[in-house]
């Protein structure tokens, strides 16, 4: 058939569709490569943790839990893990105590300087953690306060706060104001409105904020680097210090456990709220 055929003849669109398929396949193949690139460093860490011998390599030459056994019996790592856990729990509690009321205030009140307050509460996301850590370290040194689990927790509250404010704020904005007003008109006390009306509606966002903030603290390395001392270290910092001097499967086992915490937490959140909504 000649190219001069009517534009609506069959070959044109069909040819275009075939070309579309080839382009589409190339795109899918490319995305597969990209997925491999993203997963590779995580997969090798998990894989090499099962190595039975001393060598850090992927794939491992067998399957052994020997390094997990060693990691779980190491005072260094277990102590650091406890610190990380305690700090993450209290940092999350602190960020919730400060962040939830602030998120409510930002969502429900129109006041002068609202933008400024919102900017201020977001600022821990904008300032590089390296600088936050340095500034906190200097203030603590200036006031002669020694680094401890408490100072680490106080620092971590700062980085968890913006996530709590954002997540809770967008949930409250989504709740119709008239729901609260109706309850108030019917004579419900403020605390009762919060507990029996607002809380159940924003519960998924609350779970997301909790797990999110827990992970931000639990995985934090940069801020902690300035706030840890020889006696109080966290799990990411122990890994950071360890891999600078020696690379063996023990650290791969610790890293795998650290990663497992993230994956479990993330899986739990994704059951409760759509993921792309949290990250924005």
């Amino acid at each position, binding site marked *: 058939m000649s190219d001069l055929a009517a534009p609506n003849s069959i070959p044109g669109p069909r040819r275009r569709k075939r*070309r579309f398929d080839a382009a589409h396949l190339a*795109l*899918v193949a*490319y*995305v597969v490569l*990209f*997925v491999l690139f*993203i997963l*590779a*460093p*995580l997969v*090798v*860490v998990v894989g090499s943790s099962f190595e039975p011998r001393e060598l850090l390599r*992927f794939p491992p030459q067998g399957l052994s839990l020997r390094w997990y056994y060693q990691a779980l019996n190491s005072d260094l790592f277990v102590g650091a893990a406890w610190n990380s856990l305690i700090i993450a729990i209290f940092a999350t509690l602190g960020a919730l105590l*400060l962040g939830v*009321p*602030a998120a409510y*205030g930002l969502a429900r*009140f129109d006041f002068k300087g609202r933008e400024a*307050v919102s900017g*201020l*509460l977001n*600022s*821990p*996301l*904008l*300032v590089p*953690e*390296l*600088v*936050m850590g*340095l*500034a906190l370290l*200097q*203030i603590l040194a*200036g006031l002669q306060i020694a680094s401890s689990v408490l100072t680490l927790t*106080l*620092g971590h509250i*700062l980085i968890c*706060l913006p996530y709590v404010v954002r997540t809770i704020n967008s949930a409250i904005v989504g709740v119709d104001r008239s729901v609260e007003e109706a309850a108030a008109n019917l004579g419900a006390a403020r605390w009762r409105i919060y507990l029996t009306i607002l809380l159940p509606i924003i519960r998924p966002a609350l779970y997301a904020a909790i797990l999110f903030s827990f992970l931000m603290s*639990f*995985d934090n*390395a*940069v801020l902690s*680097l300035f706030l840890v001392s020889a006696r109080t270290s966290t799990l*990411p910092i122990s*890994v*950071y210090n360890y*891999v600078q001097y020696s690379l063996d499967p023990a650290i*791969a086992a610790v*890293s795998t456990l*650290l*990663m497992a915490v*993230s994956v479990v937490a*993330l899986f739990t959140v*994704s059951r409760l709220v759509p*993921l*792309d909504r949290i*990250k*924005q």
Partner: protein
Amino acid sequence: MLGAVGPACLYVVILLVLPFIYLVYLSLQEGGHGADQTAALSLANYVEIFTSRIYLESLWGTLQLGVAVTALTLLIGYPVAYYIAQSGSRFAMFTMAVIILPLFVSVVVRSFGWMILLGRQGNVNRMLMGLGFTDKPLQLLYTPGAVTVGLVHILAPLMILPIASVLRGLDPALREAASSLGASRAKVFWTVTLPLSLPGVAAGCVLVLAHVIAAFVLPALIGSDRVKLMATMIYQQVMTANNLPLGAALAVVMVVATFALLALAGFIARRHRV
């Protein structure tokens, strides 16, 4: 109202704003070792940062790395964002999960993964030798190339998410109109889709650039002294060289740079609803 937002604001002021002001004050002290607290304030440290070779090198190195990583994440990430935005398949959802998951894995662990891959006996070297590109293992770890690849890996999600979000928001009717008027698929992409996605591209680029400037853990672990960057320089000045005022000045420069970039990203995002 004050009772609701007050405590949180006060917390950020006490633990972030005041310490930062103190840092600015420290950066104005006379540099050198054992700074004299009573000396007059001066801008000497800032002058030194922008005139002395070693600090200029770290500023320049950071900028070079930032541009390289931003360009690479854009080139690598755009097709992925395009795919995620267009396809509703299960694989597209899986890809989305793969992009988001690493954001929640400690950067220490991700850097360690690259240490395994890029080591002398690592998988990349074994693959290169297997393919006959080289006879002896190459020094890949602790090089500028390693830092670049590692940062592209860590920051790619920050490029992909805003672009995918803009692409998903585009009205499919625009593309259909262009192709029913006779434009080829390539022409539709170059003249309709790509220009309309530029706000997402801009937001992604600024976001990635700001994060390269602030990156510390990955360059510290898989880079080396040869990779001179602002972040590692700050850490060195403060923790090992014991030149706190100069480290503080470098930190102030870094904050100004990242704050400006991230404010710009926020502005683009709000303006175009990324």
